[in-house]
Structures are given as C-alpha cells and as structure tokens.
C-alpha cells in the first residue's frame, strides 16, 4: 500500500535508528513524515529529483553537492535509514555525550564526522584529497559568474598554500582538520530541531 498512514515505522526500526543516529523518538517520527512527504513516488526511497523539488535547496549554490552526500557511491535511491544517517551529522552535540565511553564507536554527529561531511562536499571524485581543481570547481559553484577565473585561482592557491603541509598540492582530511581546528564546527554544523 502506498498511503502515508500505512507505511508507518515499526518500533524496532525506530529503536535501531535511535541507536545509530541518536535522534529521539519524536524527532524520528517527524523526520519520517517529512521523508514520506518528499517521496512523491511513494516507493519508500528518495531520488535526486525528490530533493531538487525543494525550492530552497534548488537555489542553494551547493545544492547538488549536498544532495549527492545522501547517495552512496553509484546509487540513485536513498532509503529512510540512509536519509537519517546523513541527517545525523547535523545533530547538535549534547554535553552528556562528550564524556561517553571512548571504546564505543564514534557517533555520527561527532566533530570529526561533521568535518568529514564537509570534506566530502569539496572532494568531488571521492579520492580523499581536495585537489586544486576540485577546490576551484566548488568555489565556482559558490560564486557563480561574479568573480573572474584569475581571482578565483588566486583564492584557491592561497587556501591550498595555507592548508597543505606535505607539499602534494592538495588537502588531505587530516590537513583539513588542522586548518579548521579553531573553528566552532559543533555550532556551525548543527541544526536545532523544533520538537
């Protein structure tokens, strides 16, 4: 059946998602109804077109990169679990989580994972390095036609120069973390919920 009320989330699934992402019960149900309202085909998965239908996302200069972050390598559909896993990166870090058991696997919304999400937005070919070309392409997406190639090139060069430490003219994930160590990532990459 395809009607909204009938494809309800089962309690076990909600529990699993809670454990994996850390969202609360009410947040999960709310996001589930958002997921189903975006899912126009009513087949339990979202495609890229479903995301592009959101006007505020379509006008975001990095909209395509963000949409891409939801889809694993080579896939065209994302189910609710994948949707939640990606959204979990933006969950605020609560104080009581900071003193968690260090042997447990890192939560999806840890500082490192938030930075990894941002890194992947730059890393177009997913080779774990941000090359000068990739940086230029992303910059071009952000500024459109309003800045010349030379200016953009010099911005990219400056950025790589400041970040690159091992001289390979590209930014690895560790170098990325180092550059942003003073930035309040927890606050800038977190979204507070209304519920």
């Amino acid at each position, binding site marked *: 059946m395809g009607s909204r009320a009938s494809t309800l989330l089962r309690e076990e699934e909600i529990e699993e998602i809670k454990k994996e992402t850390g969202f609360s019960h*009410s947040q999960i149900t709310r996001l589930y109804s958002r997921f189903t*309202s975006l899912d126009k085909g009513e087949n339990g998965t979202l495609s890229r077109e479903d*995301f592009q239908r959101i006007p505020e996302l379509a006008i975001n200069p*990095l909209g395509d990169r963000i949409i891409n972050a939801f889809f694993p390598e080579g896939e065209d559909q994302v189910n609710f679990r994948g949707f939640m896993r990606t959204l979990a990166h*933006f969950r605020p870090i609560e104080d009581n989580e900071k003193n968690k058991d260090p042997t447990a696997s890192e939560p999806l919304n840890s500082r490192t994972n938030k930075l990894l999400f941002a890194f992947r937005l730059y890393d177009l070919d997913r080779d774990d390095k941000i090359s000068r070309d990739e940086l230029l392409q992303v910059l071009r997406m952000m500024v459109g036609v309003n*800045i010349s190639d030379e200016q953009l090139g010099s911005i990219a060069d400056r950025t790589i120069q400041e970040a690159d430490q091992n001289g390979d003219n590209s930014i690895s994930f560790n170098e990325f973390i180092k*550059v942003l160590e003073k*930035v309040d990532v927890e606050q800038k*990459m977190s*979204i507070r919920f209304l519920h």
Partner: protein
Amino acid sequence: MGLFFDPFDNLLCILLGISFTVWFTLLLVFIIVPAIFGVSFGIRRLYMKSLLKIFEWATLRIERGIRRSGSNRDLDSASEFEMSDIFYFARRGVESIMDDEVTKRFSAEELESWNLLTRSNYNFHYISLRLTVLWGLGVLIRYGFLLPLRYLHYLQNQSSILLFYPPACRMKNFLSEKVHLMCYRICVRALTAIITYHDRENKPKNGGICVANHTSPIDVIILASDGCYAMVGQIHGGLMGVIQRSMVKACPHIWFERSEVKDRHLVAKRLSDHVEDKSKLPILIFPEGTCINNTSVMMFKKGSFEIGSTVYPVAIKYDPRFGDAFWNSSKFGMVNYLLRMMSSWAIVCSVWYLPPMCREEGEDAVQFANRVKAAIARQGGLVDLLWDGGLKRGKVKDTFKEEQQKLYSKMLVGTQEDRSRS
C-alpha cells in the same frame, strides 16, 4: 406464505410514504426556503459549536503524551573566504531538506488538534479505546449520514437548475441573478459550509476586479453565494467543462482555450473589454494561479493588476479543524475531492471583503500586486510569501540561485579588495 407478506408490504408502504413526506417537508423548510430568501436558522452554527467541544476533548487525550520544547536557530554569517564557508551552505541546505517554507504549502496543513479524520492525522496509531470508538462513530456519522444527506441536497440542486432555467426575456438578468444566488446557496448547504462574511459594505461592484486567495474550487461557490461574478478561467473537460458551459448560458463569463492563455495580450484585452462595460458583473480572479493550502499567500501573477481598474481584494480563510478544504490536484481528482469535502464534518470559513484598491502613481503592476497580496495576507492571518505558486509543478528559476551566488561573491570580493589595500 403470501398471507404473511401482505400486511408487511402495507406497513412498509405506509412507512416509506411517511418518511418521504417528512423528509421532503424538512428539506423544504430547512434548505430551500432559507436558500431562496437568504436567511438562516442557525442550526449549522449550533452543530459547529458542539463539534468544537468534542474536538477539544479529543485533543487533550492526545496531548498527554506529547512533549513540546522550544527551538532556536542559529544563523550564520560568513565574512571571509575560508574552507569553513562551506558550512554555511551545507547547513542551509540540510535545514531546507528537513523543513522548508514552500513544499509544505502544497500539501494539507498539519493540525495541532485532531479532528477525528484520519486523513488529517499522519501519525495515526492506536492511542486509547475511547478515542478509537469516537473515531469509529465519526466515520459512521460522516459516511453513513452526512455524506448521503449532502449528496441528496446536491441532486436537489441539479434538479432546481433545470426547473428554473430562465427563458430569454427582459427580466433575464434579474431572474438569472436570483436563480444563481439560490443555486449557490443550496450548494453551500449541501457542503454544510458555515461562512462568515465580514465588511460586506466593501463588496465588489460592477466594472471592478475581485481578487482572492485560492485554496480550492469551493472558493468560487463561497464567493458566488454572496454576489454575482463573472468567472475567468481555462476551459476544462469533464465535469468542470459541463458546469462551465451551462454557466455561460446564464451570464457572461470569460473562458479561455488553453492555447489562448499563453497569449497574455489577448487575455488582457478580453479582461479590459469586460471591465470597461459597467453593466457587466465584476470579474473574479485568483492571481496565485493554483490552489495553495490556506496557510500562506503566494506570488500574485501581475496580469490582472495591469488592467487598471479598481481591485476589490477578498481574503478567504478556512478553519482547518472541521475539514481540510485544500484541493491537492496532483493527488486527488475533482470527484475524489468532492467526496472528501462532502464527508468532512463541515466547511467553516471566514470571508473578508477588503476596501477597494487602485494602482497608485509610480507604482508598477508587480508592486501593486504585492501590496494587494500583503493586505489579503494580513487580514486572513496568512503567511505572505514571495515564492511562486507555480513551484507546485515547475522548477524554481535559476535567477534565484544566481542571486545567492552574487551575494556570496560580494562578500568575497569585498575582502579581496581589503587585502590588496593592506
């Protein structure tokens, strides 16, 4: 065997006869006579008050489990190019994925209290026996009693249109107006629509254009039961087409072929011709161009504001507690929609007639349209959005994205200049 059935047959006939008579009398007294004279017994309002009491009780039962907390959103402002600038765009993007202002206008409004219709409660699941029983009772009443009642009224309406079809004579205009009003009032009662009109002294006059926010085809019935208008719209096929063609016979409406709609000059010319003729009825236009879910008013298309006659804005606000009037045309066809309308509790709405507005000196059509839209949104308590209602079906224009890019570049270029100076 035959002996057994005869007395029952007789009894059956008598019962049928009595019930028909009673029903017909009730119908006459409570529906047709008030419709002709435009008065009301106040029965529907009593019904409305009792429904509200029941809904409050149901809501309290649900609210016991729900925890509410406040929210605050932090807004970011990047000031220099850094690798972290991407955080701003990423966060905005994901925020809009979680919830955005536009897509939710094209689906039915989510209610805070539950009005015992499963269609408006998306997380419907079993909460308590009492609530389920009440819901079951509601289903029985709505589908078993209200729906057939309303459908019969509607049939009555059809037959009265046929009966009272005005012949061509001097009294034609006067008669057809009266007949129209009567028919629309019967329709209104068929839907159990409880309408409150405010500020009737501002009602649209001949030679003007009446502009209103659009939620469903029922808007037309609601406005037309209080005054006569000339309609504007595309010629449809099917049920709507038949209705359109029959309406044209009684008074002049403006219907377009789909191909003509694209030719805006032709459309504007026909509208202004109609408007200049002071004996013709005021034109009713819905400038949003599509149905919106009555929580907001979206961009008004400027075509009707270029004509230069007086604009009479009207704000229509439905009370969502009694039934959702929004027509989601991508989900339901017309017949399905009417079925849902007729099986809701009631359609309660308020209509405000706002004072007439004219285009001022130095104001272009777009600014005038926005001014009217703001007035309607303010009166109806709706959110005034700049987004185009056409986004329901079409993609957003690239110009908006380019604006965002321009803003960001300005920030960057500004800092670059500072750098070169220092």
